[in-house]
């Protein structure tokens, strides 16, 4: 019994690794920004190095974001973000993996869809639903959208003294432009 299971598993693994990657699209310089608006101060940062893969056959999307690559207007904010809040030495990346619900690759115009998946930040994974616009431009795909993240969900500790400075809800926007993934 165990042997057959192993065999099936092996076949499956082999199969998955030999799947042609024509349906795969990749983005290496995806833009992810976040905003925190409070009456005390506004914090904004942009990351232009987000990595993402989009599979139009399975409708799956995966994203990898390096926390250190977020650029702030204030260099001190960059330091505090990495050192005191995100602790990027311990948790260097945020990831997302999910599926676009009802994505139709035959539609060539813009389509608005929900992406359901798991967002991981500081080793904490939460299910998220993201409203996104997907459009096809020649051979390339573009996906953009936004989501809101609650600070308390991801173990980000803000001292009581500074809680007026940082919003409890962080707005995240993203803009990815995918090209066919060539190996």
């Amino acid at each position: 019994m165990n042997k057959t299971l192993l065999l099936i598993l092996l076949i499956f693994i082999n199969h998955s690794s030999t799947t042609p990657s024509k349906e795969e699209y990749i983005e290496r310089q995806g833009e992810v920004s976040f905003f925190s608006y409070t009456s005390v101060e506004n914090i904004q940062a942009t990351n232009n190095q987000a990595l993402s893969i989009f599979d139009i056959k399975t409708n799956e999307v995966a994203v990898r974001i390096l926390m250190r690559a977020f650029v702030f207007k204030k260099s001190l904010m960059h330091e505090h973000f990495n050192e005191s809040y995100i602790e990027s030495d311990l948790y260097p990346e945020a990831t997302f993996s999910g599926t676009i619900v009802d994505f139709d690759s035959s539609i060539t115009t813009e389509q608005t869809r929900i992406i359901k998946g798991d967002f991981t930040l500081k080793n904490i994974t939460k299910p998220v639903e993201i409203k996104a616009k997907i459009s096809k431009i020649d051979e390339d795909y573009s996906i953009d959208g936004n989501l809101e993240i609650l600070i308390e969900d991801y173990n980000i500790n803000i001292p009581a003294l500074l809680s007026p400075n940082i919003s409890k809800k962080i707005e995240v926007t993203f803009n990815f432009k995918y090209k066919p993934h060539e190996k």
Partner: protein
Amino acid sequence: MKSKVIYCILFLSISAHLSSQNLLDKLANEDIETSSYVMSTFKGTRISIGHSVETRKKNTLEISFMSRYWNVPQESSNSFIADRMCTRVGLDYGISDRLTVGFGSGNPNGIFDSYLKYRLVQQSTTKKGSPIGITLLQAGTYRTRSIKGIERRTNFGEKLAFTTQVLIARKFSRNFSFQISPTFIHRTSSNFSIDDHNHFAVGFSPRYKLNNHVALVSEYYYVINPLKSLDTYGAFALGVNWEVSDLLLQFKMTNNQIFTEDAFITQTAQNFNFRDGNFYFGFHATYHIQL
């Protein structure tokens, strides 16, 4: 039969898991280019009383207020909180990410100081890069008033002192950093012929982070050839650094009252203890501005 069903479910769940994991795994093989420098070996440009390897980033300005408070022994005093105080107001500006320039002036000791600090090597997070960070410091001071009568004071050139430091630091873990600071101090004149114009010293400065905003710091400077006309002791400080957004607050207990390196490293005339006259409480506030 039952086991088969279980296996079947298991298999299905594994396969679903594998395929969703696959895309992320593929991304894991892609490289993201980024600087691999260790951040925040120390929080401020000063560990407690002395300079740290940290420089300021380009186009940032820091305004700092430094102060020391102490009591004078055997004085029936009616002073409010402390008998004496000494302050320094300073500006630090990041010319580039590696080069920082600073100016300051002290009151009531009348010392004007200025420094240039260059970050030569940054500690790397990877094994390939440097295991330590090295920063060079060159500072100069001008004394408008006589403090301990160490230097001759007939002309401008005799009232100067220069400090050169090679600051070597390593962030051993996310909480613990240690700095060794070989120091050379040159004073342009000496009032007494037994005093050397040049002094060599070494500073030792550990830092331990208590949490993401508060760190415990200490410093000790050992002078290899101390002044002979005056009994001096190694400068010592034990303090807490507290970071509140744009403000860095540094509280310390120390045995010296002057803020410039040449003064506190070579001319600290009292050892560290809690008696009046020896004990100095220090408070620095540094405000950070992005230009």
